[in-house]
């Protein structure tokens, strides 16, 4: 008999995500310095006892800014994935349950969404409306819809003719009840895994959009914004370009390890 491996992915991913969430929560109650306070006597300083991660070109404390930056990263990621999860699940359920023309229409819609990855969607939305946090959330969310829709559709198609669903139908249950009580629980675990993996991609996309000036507004500290500002001063000091980048890597790695770990834990067939 094979030993059950310790879910290292799950533990490590959970720890990294926990660290980032803790940083975001901590920033509400405690920050070592005011993240917006400029100190022209300490511009572009390296790490020290007063400024743990150093300072940026305005002398602002990088550690405080990295902590507070966790907020916008998590917020944009969570809302974007929330949009994708709700819209994708709904579309996938309709396509899989109704089938026929509804399936065809939804799948064509999904194909079109697939042609607009987050950055492309954000370019279009930013041109039409204003670049900003909401635009970024909607762009990342819409671009992620196809993943959830396809997953949900596949689960519904696989489950809809099962005996227990048939039994529910024979007892006179409505479609909505059959879907929510009998089908959705069976489809939940792949959706949870996908949500965690999508959060990793959403964090990367949010950072890229902020870096391009299409995401979080420049006056709000976010990791992408910090990297964009740091680029102009790399010749003088590398510190401002290091801390926010590492924060992104830790967060993305956390969500993707957590997703892998959840998949291993929830679906024994993928355990390798």
């Amino acid at each position, binding site marked *: 008999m094979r030993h059950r491996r310790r879910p290292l992915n799950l533990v490590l991913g959970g720890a990294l995500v926990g660290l980032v969430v803790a940083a975001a929560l901590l920033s509400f109650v405690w920050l070592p310095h005011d993240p917006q306070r400029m100190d022209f006597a300490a511009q572009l300083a390296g790490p020290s006892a007063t400024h743990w991660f150093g300072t940026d070109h305005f002398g602002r404390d990088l550690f405080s800014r990295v902590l507070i930056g966790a907020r916008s990263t998590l917020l944009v990621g969570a809302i974007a994935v929330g949009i994708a999860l709700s819209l994708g699940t709904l579309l996938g359920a309709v396509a899989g349950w109704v089938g026929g023309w509804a399936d065809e229409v939804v799948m064509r819609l999904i*194909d*079109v969404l697939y042609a607009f990855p987050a950055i492309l969607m954000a370019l279009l939305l930013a041109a039409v409306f204003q670049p900003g946090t909401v635009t970024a959330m909607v762009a990342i969310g819409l671009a992620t819809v196809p993943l959830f829709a396809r997953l949900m559709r596949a689960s519904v198609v696989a489950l809809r003719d099962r005996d227990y669903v048939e039994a529910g139908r024979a007892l006179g249950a409505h479609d909505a009840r059959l879907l929510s009580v009998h089908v959705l629980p069976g489809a939940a675990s792949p959706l949870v895994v996908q949500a965690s993996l999508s959060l990793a991609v959403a964090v990367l996309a949010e950072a890229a959009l902020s870096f391009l000036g299409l995401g979080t507004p420049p006056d709000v500290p976010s990791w992408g914004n910090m990297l964009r500002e740091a680029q102009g001063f790399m010749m003088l000091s590398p510190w401002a370009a290091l801390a926010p*980048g590492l924060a992104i890597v830790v967060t993305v790695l956390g969500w993707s390890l957590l997703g892998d770990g959840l998949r291993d834990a929830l679906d024994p067939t993928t355990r390798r």
Partner: protein
Amino acid sequence: MTRFLARRVLTTLVSLVLASVVVFGAVLAVPGDPAAVILGMNAAPEALAAVREQLGLDVPAPQRYLRWLGGVLRGDLGESIQYQRPVARLIGDRLGVSLPLTLAAALLATLVAVPVGIATALKRGTVWDPLLVLASQVGAAIPSFWLGLLLILVFAVGLGWLPSGGFPGWDVSVGRSLRALVLPVLALGLGQAAVMTRMTRAAMLDVLSQDFVRTARAKGLARRAVVGKHALRNALVTLVTVLGLTLVNVFVGAIVVEQVFSLPGIGRLALTAIGNRDYPLVQGVVLLYASAIVLMSFLVDLSYGWLDPRIRYA
């Protein structure tokens, strides 16, 4: 095969038309008068009228869409408001930077990821496996633009070997232009290589666990023959999907990397167009990207039919 092909051609055409509706329809959603948004509140009435005419705002939207689509099919994407030049020509000029960047990055990712992905799948269960898996996971978590900044820090600022950004132009100096693309290609390609390695490994593991591989092993075939002749050939279908995904990722990722290295590519063109509310230019660039993605997915599906007869005859 004909039915398979006909259906794929049809769905691809539908996707292309729908994508064009999205791109065209987006500008209809601009709040207020697009001409006033472009020129500002204090623009002269004559100037506003000129921009409205250029955007075709004097014609009803469905008619405008058909006119625009007709132009697109002839290669006419309209005229840029900011540059006062045809959008197609502006894009064409910048393809000379974006295309080599994208293709070289995809090639680099493939050359790294396919051998490493296959090797890690074959080394499963050894001490190297978890290390290589973790390395690819960390690599996939590094944003290409941050990797770009790190490469600039080391190779441009620190060692002074390569330029930190800018592009002299192929007609000015081929050598210097190639040098200007080295760091951007590394930034874009290495991150993708990590993502692609994971997918290649998964594809290979999937094939290696199938019955026909066990049969081939059981009948005493050499490991080389099992992997090279049986497993690899069957993993090809998935690898083609992986390659298609990589091309799309690299193509879109180039938008960010061009910004890091100040490369005058299509992505940067779109970013300046957004700042200037140059709608025809934004529409042209976004339509180009979306169409390319639709066509790439079509080609991937076609290659399935070619590589796997079961799909062709199903």
